[in-house]
Each structure stands twice: as C-alpha cells, then as structure tokens.
C-alpha cells in the first residue's frame, strides 16, 4: 500500500492540508448557516426516458412528459417558498432529477428568471443542470446555456460500451465523448459522473477507463462506487447472485486507485466521491455538506432552511431562528395536484432540534476533506461538538488516524474516509 493519504487529498497538500482548507474558504461566503448567508436552490425534475437499474432517485418514466404542467407547478412552488423565505441571496441553483435535460429550455429560463426576480442572485451564482449525453439532449445544451445555465453535470457513468448497457444507459461511449466535448465548448464549468466498482471490473481496467475520462475532464468529477440500493433493478439481481460486486478489499483498492489517478490530474477529493481542481468545487453541493441553507423545490425535494423567528412564540426559551427540514410529496402527479391546489407540495416541515442539527451536520460535514469548523458547528446547531459525539470513539478514532482535531476543526483523514459510515455510526450520538 502506498501512502493512504493520497486517496483523500492532493499530494501537494499532504502535510497539513493547509491549501485545501484555504481553497474551501474561497468557495463559500462566510461561515454559512443563517438567513444572512446565501441560499442554495434545488429544483427537481422527476422524469427520465428510462429507469436505470442502479438508481433509487425519485425518477419516473411517462409515455409523454407533461412539460407545461410541471414547469408551471415548479414556478408556483418556487414563488411560494420564496414568499416564506423572504429576501435572500441565492448562491447556486441546481436542476437535478430525474433528467432535467428533458425539460424545455424555456422552462429552465423561466425558473432562473423567477429566482432572479424573487431572490437576489449572487454575481457569481452557480447554475448547474444535470444532463444525459444522448444526442438529443446534447443538441439542447446551447439552449440551456442561453437560458442561463453556466455549469453542466453529465451523467456519463462509464466509457465502456458493455458496462453502459449493464447500467441501463441510453447513450454510447462515443455519444458521451461527443457530449463532453460539446459541453466544454459551451460552458465555463463542467462536471460528469462515473460509476466504478462495477461487477467484474478489474483495477487495471478501471485505471485505464478513468485516465481516458480524466483526459476529457474539465475541473470537476464525481466518481461513485456502485452501491446496491433497495427497490432498484440491481437489488433483485444482486440478491439472486446474478451480479456480484467487488468485495470490500477490492473496493478499497479501487477507491485508492481512483484518488491516485485523480490526483495525478490535479484533482483532489474534496468530498468522499467528488474531485475538483482548487476553486472548482461544486458550490451547490457544498451547501449540503457544509450544512448551510438549501431550499428544495419539486417532487420529493428536501430542504434545510432557516425560518426567521417571527417573535410570536410565547416560550422565551424557544425564541430564535429555527432550522426547518422540508420535504415535498414524492409522487410527481400528486405533488403537482397539491401545488395547483395549495401553491406548494410540502408533506412535512419539521423544526430540527439542536441534537438533530448536530447529528446532521456531523454526518454531512465529515464527508468533506476540510472537515467541520467547531465554532461554525456551535453557531449552526446550538450545541458544542463535544455534546454530539461519543468521546471514547472520538479518542480512539484520533489514535487510529481516522480523524484529526486541531485548530478548532474536526476532519476526516483518508483512513477514516474509507470507513466513514462505520465511523459515523459509532461517533455520532
């Protein structure tokens, strides 16, 4: 085994991770986590041409997509949420799905324009749209750029024809390359996804495929290990033994190889599965991981938004801004019905308790190489970090080289990143 730290950090930043930490601070504005910080806006488009067998996202296949109805409903719900949130600066907009590249560009343009009207868009606002690299969708990229999108996330998944078919993708490797080249010409920022640790994939094959992908990459990549999710097509195949995933040891070796190859191209793992050149991190996704405010619009979308204290609460000890967890109805048509009737499709909105906030912030923040600033943690959750972790486990995790706690920051080291789920399970109270 080579120095494990290359798995999680750029080689140049090995010693203290100083540059990584600096890099991150330039991305966001301030510490985040209150009404004064910028808001991340997520818009969910729930339709796909086909359901991929690994995917458990809230995506649906329809004979004909009701474009106009859903575009209108998304705009209605956005307006409703904006009215509740009050004036905020929006730092990022993310069109996710489903397959938002199936949206009419005019609808995307309208939603961006609405957001600009209802909120204030930050001057450098990151506006990302997820797209599939089929020829039809690639042909609309220019229209999406004209609609205001400035960053595209392409669902490439693989550059290997056999595996693309296994993964149920609708595009070929050639189409993926063509879409990437076109996107690079059109957009200042570009990222794409690959899925690895596929059934039967060897270390050498993956390295070769990843190198080819890195040659096509701009400044950001999401490299996910294939996982079997409940309720997916792969789950049944996996249970029956028809597909066999690499074991943990192989998975660990693949993860390490991935980080090495990415580092060679100057991309650091700033999150468990996300790699970027310094400064090119996904601003939108950082909002999730840093646990700052994000609003979720559309079927099944989740949000974490600060609701200002209205002052009407009669319990003085409960005064103060609340952090609300919001969730929209998952079923697209039910959601749309509700939006049309009530202006929004919210099924739940819960004020999170301090301990819930603390747990969530740890679960998300320790995925980031930069870790969690303890002062920010206290400000966001109302609790000291020590109140949210098991001290014994923390001590042992530090001794084992899984975690580092220094200068008021707790962060995950490469050996810890490999085992983060188990670590969080033991660490978080």
């Amino acid at each position: 085994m080579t120095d494990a730290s290359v798995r999680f950090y750029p080689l140049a930043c090995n010693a203290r991770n100083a540059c990584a930490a600096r890099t991150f601070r330039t991305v966001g504005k301030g510490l985040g986590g209150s009404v004064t910080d910028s808001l991340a806006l997520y818009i969910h488009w729930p339709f796909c041409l086909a359901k991929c067998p690994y995917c458990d996202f809230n995506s649906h296949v329809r004979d004909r997509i009701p474009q106009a109805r859903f575009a209108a409903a998304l705009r209605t719900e956005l307006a409703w949420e904006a009215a509740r949130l009050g004036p905020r600066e929006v730092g990022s907009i993310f069109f996710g799905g489903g397959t938002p590249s199936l949206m009419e560009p005019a609808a995307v343009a309208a939603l961006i324009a609405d957001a600009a009207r209802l909120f204030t868009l930050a001057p450098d606002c990151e506006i990302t749209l997820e797209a599939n690299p089929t020829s039809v969708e690639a042909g609309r990229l220019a229209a999406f750029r004209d609609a205001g999108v400035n960053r595209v996330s392409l669902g490439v998944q693989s550059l290997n024809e056999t595996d693309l078919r296994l993964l149920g993708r609708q595009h070929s490797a050639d189409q993926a390359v063509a879409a990437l080249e076109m996107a690079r010409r059109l957009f200042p920022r570009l990222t794409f996804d690959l899925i690895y640790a596929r059934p039967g994939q060897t270390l050498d094959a993956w390295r070769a495929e990843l190198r080819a992908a890195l040659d096509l990459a701009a400044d950001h990549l999401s490299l996910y290990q294939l996982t079997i999710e409940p309720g997916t097509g792969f789950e049944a195949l996996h249970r029956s033994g028809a597909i066999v995933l690499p074991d943990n040891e192989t998975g660990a070796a693949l993860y390490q190889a991935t980080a090495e190859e990415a580092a060679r191209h100057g991309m650091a793992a700033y999150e468990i599965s996300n790699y970027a050149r310094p400064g090119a991190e996904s601003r939108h996704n950082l909002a999730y991981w840093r646990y700052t405010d994000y609003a979720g619009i559309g079927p099944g979308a989740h949000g974490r938004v600060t609701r200002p204290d209205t002052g009407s609460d009669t319990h003085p000890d409960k005064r103060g801004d609340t952090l609300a967890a919001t969730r929209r109805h998952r079923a697209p048509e039910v959601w749309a019905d509700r939006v049309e009737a009530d202006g929004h499709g919210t099924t739940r909105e819960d004020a999170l308790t301090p301990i819930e906030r603390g747990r969530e912030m740890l679960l998300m923040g320790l995925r980031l190489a930069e870790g969690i600033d303890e002062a920010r943690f206290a400000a966001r959750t109302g609790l000291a970090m020590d109140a949210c972790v098991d001290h014994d486990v923390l001590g042992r995790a530090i001794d084992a080289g899984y975690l580092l706690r220094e200068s008021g920051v707790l962060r995950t080291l490469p050996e810890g990143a490999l085992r983060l789920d188990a670590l969080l399970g033991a660490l978080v109270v």
Partner: protein
Amino acid sequence: MTDTPTALIRNFSIIAHIDHGKSTLADRLIQSTGAISARDMTAQVLDSMELEKERGITIKAQTVRLAYKAHDGLTYTLNLMDTPGHVDFAYEVSRSLAACEGSLLVVDASQGVEAQTLANVYQAIEANHEIVPILNKIDLPAAEPERVKQQIEDVIGIDASDAVMISAKTGINIEGVLEALVTRLPPPVGDADAPLTALVVDSWYDQYLGVVILIRVKDGRLKKGQKVRMMAQGSTHVIEQVGVFTPGMVQVDDLGPGEMGYITAAIKTVADVAVGDTITDDRRPATKALPGFKPSIPVVWCGLFPVDADDFEKLRDSLAKLRLNDASFHFEAESSAALGFGYRCGFLGLLHLEIIQERLTREFNLDLIATAPSVVYRVTRTNGVTAELHNPADMPDGSVIDHIDEPWIKATIMVPDDYLGPVLTLCNERRGRQVDLTYVGTRAMAVYRLPLNEVVFDFYDRLKSISRGYASFDYAMDNYEEGDLVRISILVNQDPVDALSFIAHRNAAEARGRSICGKLKDLIPKQLFKIAIQAAIGGRVIARETIGALSKDVTAKCYGGDISRKRKLLDKQKEGKKRMRQFGKVEIPQSAFLAALKMDA
C-alpha cells in the same frame, strides 16, 4: 370405579426409542378402548406440550385409565403410564416405572434395539417389570421381525418368542397388545386397610387447580378432604380433588391400592412436591416411606442472559413460571461484566437445558444468550475445603487449588460397525475409557466412561455427524474423579470476557483456546478498529488472533440534500447495535457469540 379389585388392574408403561412408535401405540390403545372418540383424537394425545409434540419426546409423565373387556369376559382397568423418554429424566423415568408392574417394549421391526431403549428396559427390569416385547411397523417392507426378535434376546436377554407383532400406525393387532397386558402382566399388590402410601410420580402446574400430582396408590386409600403428609418434604396438605385421567380429568371419591390417578391440594408450585416422595395419611402415617426417593440435582449449568438488558425482569418472571412446573430446574441470579444481568441455571442434562432454553424463546418470546454449559466440579483448596463449582468465572486462583474433581458418566453407544472406528476415536479424544465393546449382528455396542465435561462440548452432535445419524447414545451419571483441569480465559482487546471462559483438561486447553480464537476471528465481523483476541491460562497467553479494521465502509453517493434518510440509516445502525454485546470496546453480534459457544476443539 374406585373399588376396582386389584386383580382387575394392570399398570403398565411403554418403553421405546424416539420414533419407534410409542405415542402412536398409546393413541391406538386409547382409541380402541373407546376412552376418546375418533373425532376428538388429535395425533399423540398424551404429548400435550407443543414442544413435546414437535420433538416426539415426552417431558412429563402422564397416565390414561382405559377400560378393556377382555376375552375372558371381565372388564379390566388398564393404567397406561407414559414416561418421559430421555436420559436427562432418568430419575423421573424410574419413578414412573416404579408405579407399574410391567412394560411394553416397543421396538421398530426394521431398526431394532437402540441405546436409549436399552437403558430404559434395564431400568424396567430393575423395577421388576414383566416385559412384553412388541414389534412395531411390521407392515413396512424393511421389517425383519425374526432378526429383531433375535436381537432382543441377545442384547436384552428376555424371551421374545411371544413378541406381539403390530402396526400402531395402521392399527394391526392392537387387540393382541391389550390381551397380552391382561394375560401376561401381574396385577398390583396392595392392602386397602394398611396405612396410606402413595408414590408421587410427577406433578405439574395447572392455572386453575394449582399443582396436579400424579400418584400411584400402594396401600390404603386416598380420599377427598383427607389430610395427607409428604414424607420426605414433611409438608401437609388437605386433598381437594381425587381423580383419574380418561384421558380427560374425571373426579372420583377415592383411590385404592394399585390405582393410578391424581390429587390436587391447593399447592402453588411443583417445587413443593418432590417426585418420588411418599404421600401418607397425616393422622395414621405409614412408618416407612416407599423406597427410591432422591432429590433432583442439576448436573449441567449455564448462564442465560437477555439479549436486550430491558428483558431481565421478563426473564426472571419467565424462569419462575417455568419452575412452577419443573422443579428439577434451578436458577440463581448472575451478573457478568460482558453480558450484564442474567441467571445461572441448572439442568438435569443437555436435553433438559435445550428444552428450557427453547421454551423461554418460544413461549415467553425472549431473546437469550446462553453461555457454554458447565458441569459441576468439586474444587478442593489447599486449606482442605471442598466446594462445588458450576461457573468457570468463579474458579479460584490456581495457587489456592489443591485439586479438582470432575463428574464422569457411563455412556452406552450403539452404532453400525461401519462407523465404529470414528466413534471410538471420538470417545478416546474425549478422554473416554472403554468399559465394554460387544457386537450384536452388525451393530456394535460400546460402553465408555467419559468425563461429562467432554460430553457437554457438542459430543452428541459430533457423534451424530461421524455416524451419519446412525449412532444412538445414552448415559448415566457415574462418579467423580480428579482431573488436571484449567480455566481458559478469552480476552478481547486485553479485556477478559467472563462469559466466554471455560474449564478444560490441560492437554486440550491449547487446542480449545486456538479453536475458539480462530472461531471468533471468523465470527466477529471486521469493525472500525482492529481487535485482538487471546486465550490465556492465568497470565499465560496460549492462543492469539487479530481481526483487522474493516477495509471500507462508506456510502459513495450522498445526494439531493436528503439528510433525513442518512439520519435514519444512522438510527438503524444504532438499533442494530442493541443486538450486539460490548466486549470491552468491541461489539460482538449475538449470532457470533452463540456460534462461538457451540465450539468443538
């Protein structure tokens, strides 16, 4: 029905190996004498406990009173005594047999005599029983009645020429069995005018009646309202009900000599009624109790701990409820650093242990961890004081021990000679000493003396597997003998796990220590931190294994801001931990723990 002359009474039991058809024959006898209508006939009427039905074994003795009009024109009262069918209940069996004058020896006409049959038939002979051999399943193509008759004569030494040939399943020649009972069994002997003596055969708890005592009257009479005394226990009770089983309970006015039936006397727990005790009249007591009373003493102990610590009280209540009906099982509170609060429980044998554990799980819905079974050692200290030890955790430091005695058993194993070699090897590996080795046709009968300690470590499972299930095994407690015994401690990350420590012979200690360390290494899943597992005698480590940290466990994709889902996963993870046991700082899944305890060297 209470004044039945003894000449018209026949009391009998049925001796059979499991599956040789004892319960089926009993059912047929009940059916053909009309004691129960065909409509109410459920298969195996007598085995009322769910567990008994499932395993085909009888735990409690039961009786049925049958009326049979014989060929001689007289109507006889036949009392069928259904005895517990396993060696663990040998004493209970002996008391059931003492209540009868004869036995039906049921042998499967294709399988022949088995070890268990042999032990029981010897007990019947010891009880002076007239024995009527019955060859069952004669309708099966594989039946070899002549060969099996010969085997009965050779092995047991009784005349099998008049064996009754039947098929209990199809009902062939049940009449022949009934006639044999009447003509070949002696009637009971007793004096109605003598002071009362009645044998306590068994007892059980009934939620409406309190304890129901199954009795056999020897002399005198038992009447409702009578004040009786338990001669061994010394307690007195007033009889509330006297009755017989037909097989339903039917009250009668009194029971005279030679009769079997039940009494109730507002007794709250079976612990107040000792099997084998003699009931006599309090005002006119007998001078001498019936022979053969022995208090029941557990021979195998193990710790039972609730998986969920919150279930401790439920476990206590459940054990108390079980003991209401089974005085032979003992329990005392125990606390373990590893397993928390639980009970140290004593049993008559391994089957008894298994039955109780299963009943706790099944009837009381408890999730339990059982520690390795331990026998009762006698530890003599250097100061000359001897104490019994049934928990390895309580073993004193080696420096103060002068010597340790351990219990030995006398085991009878019957096995087709093809498998004899491995069986003898197994016995020798387990420190066995051969007492006898004889052949009956192609079946060998090996009699061995073995330390019980070696038998509780899955001897029976091994025996079954090396003989492909053909070996039958039976044992009786023998005596105590000094042994070179040591306690092996298991340490997880340097912390001793009290519940995993065990006592073994010094020569086997290293192999067993290595085996359990290896097993734990395979059973304990890799965890967040690496784990050291050691076996040690005193301070000396004899085996060591390391479980490396798990190599990878991380969710690749954390998407869409749905943290609630991640939080739920975390909650689920924490819920899963409740099913783990903390050993030091290591979580061991309960399944691994159970499997580790089922180890074999």
